[in-house]
């Protein structure tokens, strides 16, 4: 456990160094969030009845999405990990007395978290003080406030576990570019990053809720804004836990198989 903790610490403090980049990122995300809200506002003006949730709930959803972007962005991959697979450096990593899956998982999670820590507070701080319907609201009720952090953590872990699958696929393709683009676009759309899942047609929603992607960013944000509460929220968290276990076990098993046939290129 201690070794993972120190891997985490190295990555985390390393990630915290890029502060100027983070500020630029904050400005970009703020503008992006603002444009998204204006877009939905136009739809809301045209037909408020079609809105699946309160307008302010959607605004909160979007600000959360921007604030926690670094946690849930599907396009973030650690280039080092890909390099080590392609260049064969993975051989060194295998010599270390620790579990490869765990190490990569922790490194990835740390890089994402460091980014989030740098970015989320300024965005939330500004979003709280915006005028009424455009601000980020408080959690819908006490239960939501309690369940939200649990759900965020689970969703985050599912996100990292799924991106691990993309890393492992590089053992087979050796050039990760293609699968990366493909995976990112699928994850982005199905996880509700492009449009929130409640805005999909009902039939599509039913399918999406059965897939692991809904357990990533959609679940915690919908709990926060109170779109799912009570029993349903507890069920959502159970589903998240289920997918986390499945993706973790699946990823581990797959990595084991990939390592059995790994050919290290060059010396």
């Amino acid at each position, binding site marked *: 456990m201690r070794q993972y903790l120190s891997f985490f610490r190295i990555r985390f403090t390393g990630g915290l160094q890029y502060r*100027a*980049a983070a500020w*630029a*990122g904050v*400005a*970009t995300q703020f*503008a*992006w969030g603002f*444009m998204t809200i*204006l*877009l939905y506002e*136009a*739809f809301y*003006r*045209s*037909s408020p009845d*079609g809105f*699946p949730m309160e307008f302010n709930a959607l605004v909160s959803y979007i600000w959360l999405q921007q604030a926690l972007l670094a946690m849930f962005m599907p396009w973030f991959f650690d280039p080092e990990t890909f390099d080590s697979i392609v260049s064969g450096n993975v051989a060194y990593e295998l010599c270390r007395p620790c579990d490869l899956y765990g190490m990569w998982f922790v490194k990835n999670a740390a890089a994402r978290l460091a980014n989030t820590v740098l970015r989320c507070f300024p965005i939330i701080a500004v979003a709280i003080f915006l005028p009424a319907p455009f601000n980020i609201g408080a959690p819908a009720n006490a239960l939501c406030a309690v369940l939200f952090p649990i759900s965020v953590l689970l969703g985050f872990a599912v996100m990292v576990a799924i991106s691990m699958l993309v890393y492992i696929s590089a053992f087979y*393709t050796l*050039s*990760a*570019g*293609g*699968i*990366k*683009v*493909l*995976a*990112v*676009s*699928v994850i*982005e*759309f199905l996880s509700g990053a*492009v*449009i929130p899942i409640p*805005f*999909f*047609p009902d039939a*599509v929603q039913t399918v999406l809720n059965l897939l692991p992607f809904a357990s990533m960013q959609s679940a915690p944000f919908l709990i926060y804004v109170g779109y799912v509460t009570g029993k349903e929220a507890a069920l959502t968290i159970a589903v998240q836990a289920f997918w986390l276990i499945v993706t973790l076990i699946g990823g581990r098993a797959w990595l084991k198989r990939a390592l059995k046939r790994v050919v290290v290129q060059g010396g």
Partner: protein
Amino acid sequence: MKLYFKYAAILVKSQMQYKASFFMTVAGQFITSFSSFFAVYFLFDRFNEVDGYTFSEVLICFAAVLMAFSMAECFLRGFDTFPQLIKSGSLDRMLLRPRSVIFQVLTSTMEFSRIGRFMQAAVTLGYAIPTCGVDWTYDKVLTLIAMIIGGIAVYAGLFILYAAISFFTIEGLEFMNIFTDGTREFGQYPMSIYGKGILKFFTYVIPIALFQYYPFLYLVGRSVEWWYGLLPLIGLIFIVPCYGFFVFGLSRYKSTGS
């Protein structure tokens, strides 16, 4: 020009070396833009209209922007790597060669894998043109072509501007993304739905609305002002200050020395 095609041919060949990856990237790009198409489709499925614009009207706007962006991107995204060229000092090498820097940057990378996005734009346009209910007279056809050409010019200008700024910052400027990738995403809808302030900004500062909103109004018959169809050509002028800024940056260029 001959040299340009020679470079292009080399780049195609090098990218085709990783065939599986190339085709997966193309497929990925295709799906990415498909997902933004579905996002628009699903929202209209729920709301029917936005500010009085119907789905088929928005679709023609969507397709024109995507088309312009993907074409500009295919040939000009070389500027995307420009900050790295400065950082690594490769630019010094380019300055020594007897060809213009812009030419060399253009030919340093060409993203043929972006063909996926282009194909998606073509499909959408092919679907939107017959279904959008526009009576395709000659002037409307010309308006649509002008929209796409103007759009390419504006995006080209933005890519050059992005590179020019990095002369001063060395880092790439993430904020510029809101004008390139951002306007691609948000430009799927007529700019007016974001409110007057945003529309003014994207008319006078970054001239996105000139090729996307005003000619679009004429195209779908919401305005009878035929000269709206000529506004995209102002987009061509947008390149001039961007290029000027690039030249200015180049004249102040100090090598990073590595």
